[in-house]
């Protein structure tokens, strides 16, 4: 046990664990935005749903870790599907705005829910997540995403990204696949969120605001939309570089903005991406 606690306090291991959690979340966003071409600006909301669901199960019902994480993942996935149903008809900018609105609504609702601790958030969440668990989630997540993207379903999702109308003509059930993309992508965010809650042991509704969604989008854009390598690489770069450059931490958000604009102008496919997403 001493061995483990030593590892849990280690600064680098903490960064590594957060990096793994971010990879899991960005993999989910990649499925929605990169593979299916549906720009989501509310990904952090699903992360918060997973985090709160998981943390509440652990705090109020003393559930074991695997139950909390599975429930958090499942809950975020179901909520993602539920969001997917009404906003199916929206495209491009409108979809982005609707997801943003959804994200804000989730934040405000959590902020006003007594059981979720309102603005104080939840604390003393049992710390279950270790680096190895987070790493395991990344490995399983990548394997799942790889197999999913290259299956029939993945092809259907990509056809929606390339040309929705043409895909529909070819018999792709657009509604079903968009909901599927939102459900699976959100479930990944929920998984990342519950790992996050059980790692930091403290969560607050304002941790999952618009800026968090932007941060995740930034990771995906930097790495390359539509590419699993890209999603992972972007998450690694933007989780570690700000830590290394702590002395310049005030400039972090401005740098994010510059990264977004410069990448879009000079390399819209991202560092590792092969495709350009057309929406």
């Amino acid at each position, binding site marked *: 046990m001493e061995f483990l606690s030593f590892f849990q306090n280690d600064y680098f291991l903490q960064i590594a664990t957060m990096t793994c959690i971010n990879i899991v979340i960005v993999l989910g966003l990649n499925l929605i*935005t990169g593979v299916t*071409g549906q*720009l989501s*600006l509310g990904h952090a909301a699903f992360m918060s749903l997973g985090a709160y669901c998981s943390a509440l199960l652990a705090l109020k019902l003393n559930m074991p870790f695997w139950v909390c994480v599975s429930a958090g993942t499942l809950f975020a996935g179901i909520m993602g599907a539920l969001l997917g149903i*009404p*906003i199916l*008809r*929206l495209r*491009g*900018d*409108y979809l*982005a*705005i*609707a997801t*943003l*609105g*959804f994200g*804000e*609504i989730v934040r*405000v*609702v959590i*902020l*006003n829910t007594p059981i979720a601790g309102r603005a104080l958030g939840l604390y003393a969440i049992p710390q279950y997540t270790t680096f190895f668990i987070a790493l395991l989630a990344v490995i399983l997540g990548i394997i799942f995403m790889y197999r999913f993207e290259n299956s029939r379903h993945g092809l259907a999702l990509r056809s929606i990204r390339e040309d929705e*109308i043409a895909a529909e003509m070819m018999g792709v059930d657009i509604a079903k696949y968009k909901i599927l993309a939102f459900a699976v992508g959100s479930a990944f965010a929920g998984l990342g969120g519950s790992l996050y809650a059980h790692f930091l042991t403290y969560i607050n509704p304002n941790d999952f605001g*618009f800026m968090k969604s*932007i941060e995740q*989008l930034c990771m995906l*854009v930097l790495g390359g939309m539509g590419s699993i390598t890209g999603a992972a690489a972007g998450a690694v770069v933007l989780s570690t570089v700000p830590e290394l450059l702590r002395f310049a931490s*005030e*400039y972090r*958000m*401005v740098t*994010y*903005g*510059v*990264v*977004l*604009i410069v*990448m*879009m*102008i000079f390399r*819209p496919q991202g560092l590792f991406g092969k495709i*350009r*997403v*057309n*929406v």
Partner: protein
Amino acid sequence: MIIKQLLNGLTVGSVYALIALGYTMVYGIIKLINFAHGDIYMIGAFLGLIAATVIMKNFVVVLVFAMMGCAILGVLVEKVAYKPLRNSSRISALISAIGASIIISNTVVLINGPQREAYPKLFPNITYNLGGISISLLQVFIIVISIVLMYGLYYIVHNTKMGIAMRAVSQNLNAARLMGINPDKIISFTFALGSSLAAAAGVLVGTYYTAIDPMMGLLFGLKAFVAAVLGGIGSIPGAMFGGIVLGLAEVLGVAFISPSFRDAIAFGILIFILIVKPTGLFGSTAKEKV
């Protein structure tokens, strides 16, 4: 009581309408949600603060200074972040716009710090009593200034050469180019116009709420965007109408439901409108081209 709430709603709503006009004009012309628009509104408020402390505490001076500064900033943002992407995919332009928004708000945080700043008093505290209903001079002024500015915009768009060119570009950019209109110039003009209205809104909000902060642009801007969507994006009367409706809905929601759900009300309206009538109340439907 209810009339007082309606007046408050009208005041906030006319400010929303001013900002919404900027979104709707830019969207009408280049089909881009100018995410940085809310931050330009915030810069307007800060420029007003600078003008009031450095130059003089005169409302007209403050307003003109903020509007001119933001007009320049709006054009600059367009040139740097949007112009190079005019032929790229929509998603790229949108992400670049988000980038511009983050840069502006966080640059102000770097310079000023994230704390709130008290806004100078530009108006005497006079309250009128009309048959039991009290209305402050400031509220009257906000509503009047908004109406004047909106009428000015309406005049520009409908009665000047620039306005005709703007409408031509929004109809068909390439056809307008063939007619001898320089679309780049018109787009810059649109950004300047929209940004100066946002700056005016910033100064008005600063004087109304007596405090500003670098992050105020995000939420307020998004809500103004909701107003633009509500009225039908691309439609100028729609933006005005949407702003007023949103302001009223918000104030009434706060009064009768709960103050803590203020922001959720706006986004609830947004999602509802997007689902029920995505073109908004005044918007026209466009057939999908295959």
